[in-house]
Structure formats: C-alpha cells, structure tokens
C-alpha cells in the first residue's frame, strides 16, 4: 500500500501521467461520471457521423469535410475524457508530446498526398 500511496502523493504534486485523473483519482463516482460524459459525447458524434454519411438531407459535397470534422471532434473527446489529456499546468509534457506527434502525422499525411497527387498529374497516361 505504501508504495502505491507514494505514487499518488507524487502524482498530486507536479505532473500527472497520461490516463490518470488530475485529482487524486480515488473518487470512484467522479471518475465514472467523467467516463460517462465522454461516452455520451462519443456516441453522439459517432451517431451523427454514421447518419450524415448516408443522408441526402445535406449538400452531398460537404459530407466528406463534415465527416473529417466530426472525427477530429471525437478524437478530441477521447483524448480529454478517456486519456485525460488536458490543458492544465500538470499536463504540459503530455500535451507537448501530443503536439509533436500531431505535427509528424500532419507532415506524413499531407506530404504523401501532395507529392503523390503531383506525380500522378505529371506522369500522363501509361500505354501498356
């Protein structure tokens, strides 16, 4: 027990690990409530995504952008409510690591698509 308490005492002092609650993390009801809010928001966003993908109620060309925005929103919900990545001062290391990861992901995705699209345009039709 004492070693566990050591972990949590230090936890409330400065930083906290990703996935840990900012508070002491012992209050079960509060913790469950946080996950319930996250689950509710995630279900809502997922349901809207699936609904909007098949609907004809909105302007069709707008749907891909709407789906991407909904996905990014849901990833944000997961990060905040499930992984407990917040903007608090005890979370700066985690957020900075995440920011760097997002930068690399952005470079890989946009760079690949941009370069491959250009190559495709400049290659011309292939004759077998």
């Amino acid at each position, binding site marked *: 027990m004492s070693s566990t308490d050591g972990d949590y005492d230090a936890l409330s002092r400065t930083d906290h690990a990703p996935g840990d609650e900012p508070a002491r993390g012992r209050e*079960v009801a509060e913790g469950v409530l946080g996950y319930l809010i996250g689950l509710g928001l995630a279900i809502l966003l997922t349901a809207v995504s699936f609904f909007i993908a098949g609907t004809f109620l909105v302007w069709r060309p707008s749907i891909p952008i709407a789906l991407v925005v909904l996905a990014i929103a849901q990833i944000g919900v997961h990060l905040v409510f499930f992984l407990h990545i917040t903007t608090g001062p005890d979370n700066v290391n985690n957020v900075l690591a995440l920011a760097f990861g997002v930068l690399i992901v952005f470079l890989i995705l946009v760079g690949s698509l941009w370069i491959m699209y250009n190559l495709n345009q400049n290659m011309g039709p292939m004759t077998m």
Partner: protein
Amino acid sequence: MTAFQAGADFGDGRREETQGPRPEAIMDHAGPTAKRIIVGYGFWIFLLSDIVMFSAFFATYAVLVNETAGGPSGKDLFDLHNVAIETACLLLSSFTCGLAAIGSRAHNGLLYYGGMAATFLFGLGFLSIEMHEFAGMVGQGAGPTRSAFLSAFFTLVGCHGLHVTLGLLWLLTMVAQVFAKGYRADILRRVLCFALFWHTLDIIWVAIFTVVYLLGAGA
C-alpha cells in the same frame, strides 16, 4: 521531470519509486518524479510513435484508394451495418476499460474485474466481426492480392486488428497479474499503460471508420 534519475531503476518493478540512492547534486526543486508519471509518459511517447506509424498506413491507403485494378471498390465491399456494430463494441470496450482503470486505482475488485471482463468481451466481439468481414472479402475474391486498394486496406485495418488482438492478450495478462499479486504499484503502472493502449486503439478506429468506411462507402 528528472528522467535520468529514473533510468537507474527502470524496469525493475519491485523497487520503491521515490527511494534509493540519489545524488543530491542533480536534484533541482520538486524531487524525483513518481515512477508512475515517468512510465506513463514514456508509454505515451510510444503510443504517439504508434500513431505516427498508422499515419503512414493511412497515407498509403489514401494514395491507393482509387487503384482498384478493375476489382471491387469500397462501395461494393463495405457493409456499414457491420461497421456500426464494430464501432459500438470498441467504444463500449473503451468505456469499460476506463471503469476498470478506476477500479484498479480504488482497489475495487468488482469494478476492476467486471470492467476488464466487459472490455474483453466487447473487444472479442469487435475482433470476430472484423475476422468475419475479412473472411467474406477474401472468399469473394477481394483479398489483399486483388488490387493496390485492397492491399492498403488489409494492411491498415489488419494492423489495427492485430493491435486489438495483442491488446486482448495483454488484458488477460493484467487480470492474471492483479489476481495473483494484488494492486501493487508496479502492477498498477502496467494497468495504466494497458488502459492508455486500449483508448488509443479506439482513437485509431475513429479515424479508420471515418476515412476508410464512411468516406469509402458513401460520400
């Protein structure tokens, strides 16, 4: 965060966190960071590198999505009904995994074992639907060798499925370790890492069901 301090006893779960010899000269202000924070942070870095790996698969898929070589496209193959059930399974498993993490911190056996059992069942449900979908696609001649699109599809979604499979094995290991050794600090650190891993798999699935299935099948 004095990370070099932690390197000394990294990997040996039986030693105490904040004790042991430490040169006072390199201690600056708040003292050594708890091992739980260092382990969690290190695992978070690993997960981000895993996400970077997935982003390369996503980029490959996005480049090759139209190269069907005359074979079936996503519109012909994807069944959004199945995907919705898979999504529900994984989202609920992420939620119950969170409950298990709370249970492990509170030393609450019902919450921990119940949450882990539910997580396992939802994860298994997800995996069996996915295997069924893959088998159906291969059965109708749309296996990974059919076209560049399908190669990229099976690489991306299969890699996520492989992660889920490994996660389920890890889950069983954590249940067994808590059962055998109790809520010890080192075991709880592993539970923390497992929970992070499982939540991250759900985040990657959000990207997969949006980019691969919803954008591929309809819009």
